[in-house]
């Protein structure tokens, strides 16, 4: 984790945005970002991530609410005076300028002397490992190199806040992994605050200090990556971050110090951790991670044990994926790490499944 202090760098206070005056693209956003933090806005396409960045950068005005930068409202500050570095989705490099000129541009408009300009450009090129590329045109660079230039340009005037809008969206897998590492390294080196946007949950998990999961303009949950995975507060987050089995059921009763629901689903009664506040008789969604499901456990070891039929087996190298029919569904997934081989099941076998109450989260029914 990078060095941070507890000052709030950016704060969204009840920010809403509508382009057409009718549909809210961002709804009542409250979000605080600490100095030096790497925060990712994660959400499917159209969930309002870019809009939030544009409001922060100053290209869009909020319909309601206010944004504070270092405690100061920035409504009336035009984009060019906010001093925020921005990496655009399609790089937005200036195609008619060389790499060096692209990097010198923000320094020239700040009337910096030629000597210092050259020094800074050199330094930032070294930072993104593009020494010797200053005289190339962007079109003569590969996608990954262009991305590095875009990042360098957003950093060269030493902003304390950098926004990145799906910066790796156009790169292929291996290059992405490399750039993810590079961006983290740069973040650690410079200790800038980064607001990062992606729709790729794995990327978000790899890079972020905290992740804000967005859906339809609403922040569903903000947490550290582990928190999102282990303790999702809604079924959207549970299914968006990693994989989860989602069973729909009805609450029969509560038990055990009031933090466990007994839920009926597909003819089975399941003990689930109380996450959503519901009453007896309400519908809930149960979320169970596939790797937390044990096949044919020792009897009596798990609070939840059900009968199931093997529907399908997929060997994935490091793990075995088993599709099972249980609790009235045929798409229940269990994964078994490939450590000791598996029990030699074949399609049609009857098995017992077991999982703990803690690994079965009762979430609001959607």
């Amino acid at each position, binding site marked *: 984790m990078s060095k941070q202090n507890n000052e709030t760098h950016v704060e969204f206070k009840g920010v809403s945005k509508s382009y057409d005056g009718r549909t809210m693209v961002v709804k009542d956003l409250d979000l605080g970002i600490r100095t030096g933090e790497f925060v990712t806005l994660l959400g499917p396409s159209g969930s309002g991530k870019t809009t939030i960045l544009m409001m922060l*950068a100053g*290209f869009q005005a909020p319909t309601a609410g206010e944004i504070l930068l270092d405690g100061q409202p920035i409504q009336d500050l035009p984009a060019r*005076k906010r001093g*925020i570095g*921005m990496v655009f989705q399609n790089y937005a490099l200036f195609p008619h300028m060389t790499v060096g000129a692209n990097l010198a541009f*923000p320094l020239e408009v700040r009337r910096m002397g030629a000597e210092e300009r050259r020094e800074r450009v050199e330094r930032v090129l070294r930072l993104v490992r593009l020494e010797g590329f200053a005289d190339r045109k962007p079109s003569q660079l590969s996608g990954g190199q262009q991305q590095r230039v875009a990042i360098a340009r957003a950093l060269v005037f030493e902003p304390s806040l950098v926004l990145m809008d799906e910066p790796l969206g156009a790169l292929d897998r291996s290059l992405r992994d490399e750039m993810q590492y590079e961006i983290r390294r740069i973040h650690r080196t410079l200790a800038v605050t980064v607001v990062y946007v992606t729709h790729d949950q794995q990327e978000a998990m790899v890079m972020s200090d905290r992740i804000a999961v967005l859906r339809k303009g609403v922040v569903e949950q903000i947490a550290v990556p582990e928190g999102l995975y282990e303790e999702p507060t809604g079924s959207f987050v549970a299914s968006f971050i990693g994989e989860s089995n989602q069973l729909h059921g009805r609450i029969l009763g509560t038990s055990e110090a009031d933090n466990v629901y007994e839920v009926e689903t597909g003819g089975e009664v399941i003990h689930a951790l109380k996450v959503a506040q519901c009453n007896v008789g309400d519908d809930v969604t149960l979320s169970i991670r596939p790797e937390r499901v044990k096949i044919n456990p020792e009897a009596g070891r798990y609070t939840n044990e059900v009968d199931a039929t093997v529907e399908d087996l997929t060997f994935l190298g490091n793990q075995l994926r088993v599709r099972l029919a249980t609790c009235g569904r045929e798409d229940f997934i269990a994964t078994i790490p490939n450590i000791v081989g598996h029990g030699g099941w074949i399609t049609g076998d009857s098995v017992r499944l077991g999982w703990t109450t803690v690994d079965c989260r009762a979430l609001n029914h959607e």
Partner: protein
Amino acid sequence: MAGPIKLSGGPGYRAKVRALGLVAPLLIFIVVTFVAPLGTMLLRSVYDPVVADALPETLELLEDWDGIELPPEAVYAVAAQEVKRAGAERTLGQVASRVNRVQGGLRSVITRTGRELREIQQGPWRESMMTIDSAWADPAIWYAIRTTGERFTARHYWNALDLQSLPDGSVVRQPEDRRIYLRLFWRTLMISGLITLLCLLLGYPIAHLIACSKPSRANLLLILVLVPFWTSLLVRTTAWIVLLQTQGVLNEFLVTIGLIGDDGRLAMIYNMTGTIVAMTHVLLPFMVLPLYSVMNSIPSTQMDAAASLGATPLQAFLRVYWPQSLPGVGAGALLVFILAIGYYITPALVGGSDGQLISNMIAYHMQTSLNWGLAAALGGVLLLIVLLLYAVYERLLGIEKIGLGG
């Protein structure tokens, strides 16, 4: 497979024949409607066989003539026979008008000579011809005949450039009062440049506005730009007459609001102003369309990026937007300028006398003075200017940079 089409069998052969068959109509069309007319026109500007065909032997004898004294009787004798024959074959009129262009007044001399020689069967021919017209006692007429007798000649081009070749072979400028074409070329270039500039000033913001608009609105605006194309050129030009003439809408309005007096009505048409206003209007779409197509390909994030890097709107425009729109500016300017220097109808209708361009002069020589050689030479000079411009543009911007498509 590189190189020319292989005329033997093989898998690629049929495909190539088919491809050739498919482009053939276009190729033939281009040859018939463009290459051939252009070629004949250019040929006509340097090739004129009429006099050479009508007076072959005379011209042969004149080759030995010193150009200063009168030629000997032998020349008059041959010339008389050939003039008679040309008169009988009805080509003498064409000969006369060509000779007349070298020196005014000789047309009637030659036609009259042809008529009166019919009655004369015997020499001495020199005296007879001098009696018919004293012009035959002046070496100038022989010089004129010899000049027009050249099959291949540069004299149309000398003419088109306000030059003339003297009997001693030197080429000098025309006398002051006969220099018209260079001035007209210059004026055409200046007016075309001004029109191009006006089109750029008017078209750039429009194109920018369209490129920045939402697709639905951009379509509407594009249609508005294109509406003039759907209207006849004559209607558009006439509309300007209605607006700008002395009793026209604009003048009436200015008089009504008292900005000008009834006797101080502005002359805005049938002069240079009329030509400039109407042509700017007619040519504006040719500026807007290439500009729009280039601007449309500039992502809106470019300006956002410039702003996020701290640039003021003016800095962002000058350093980011303008350079990227240059290919469109180049394409539009080249298109408008080249169309303008060859434009004919609009200046003819609203240009009056001082708003005429070189193309109107070409039309005059084609239709009225029937000096097709000179018309062709003027056209040739115009073509050369266009090619030069094209070369300069290529040098400055590179032709591959012309942006007509996004």
